């Protein structure tokens, strides 16, 4: 694809990915075919900030994990009062990274 298009995509979506992944995504996007642009530009990515807010407000019910699609872990959190409160606190700090990894998984379906 054109570098200009790719750079635009990277600029507007960089907050959805880990910083060390962005370079790889950029190179991969330049290499792939132009026909995939329509799909890639319309992917629904999850916002790490939203996950953080949900995690702080409703983390002990596991709703942050349900939102990311980790249903099993969400049930685990729900059944144990958020892992006796410990898992809730751990997730306040790790949920943003988890969201970015989920986004990476999602975009990888189109990149390869």
């Amino acid at each position, binding site marked *: 694809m054109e570098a200009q298009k790719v750079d635009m995509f990277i600029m507007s979506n960089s907050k959805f990915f880990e910083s060390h992944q962005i370079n790889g995504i950029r190179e991969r996007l330049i290499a792939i075919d132009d026909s995939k642009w329509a799909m890639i530009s319309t992917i629904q990515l999850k916002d790490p900030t939203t996950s953080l807010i949900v995690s702080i407000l409703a983390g002990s019910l596991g709703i942050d994990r349900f939102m990311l699609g980790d249903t099993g872990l969400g049930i685990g959190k729900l059944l144990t009062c*958020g892992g006796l409160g410990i898992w809730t606190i751990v997730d306040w700090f790790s949920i943003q990274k988890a969201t970015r990894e989920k986004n990476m998984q999602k975009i990888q379906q189109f990149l390869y």
Partner: protein
Amino acid sequence: MVLSRNKLYSILIMACVAGYIWVCYNMVNKQSVLEPVEVCFIKYFTNIPCPSCGSTRAILSLTKGNFNDAFSINPIGFLVAFIMLFSPLWILLDVVAKKNTLFAFYQNLETYLRRPKIAIPLLIIIMINWIWNINKGL
């Protein structure tokens, strides 16, 4: 988080160990059964019990064989006790036989539970249980 087999098993084992330590701690400290140590954020900040509050007390009455008491405290206790009893055994079997049956089961269960036909009734059950918890004043 990209969940792999070993990651899931270590999370489950850690959760079970923490659960057993927690139950043992509550069994040794008899007073804390009457005045439980509050680890639940929701209950601590709002005084409203969360959906799974009371499952420790339910498991403690299960260990004494009071099934009716356990059910009236919190039915979720049965589910938690079941998972705590059987998941370490299943993991042990899997690790010894070098298979991943539990991981496959977990992934199938996840896709199964995501279907609205299953998820909505379960959600309603949890909500009813929660309302019951609040009424009981756990």
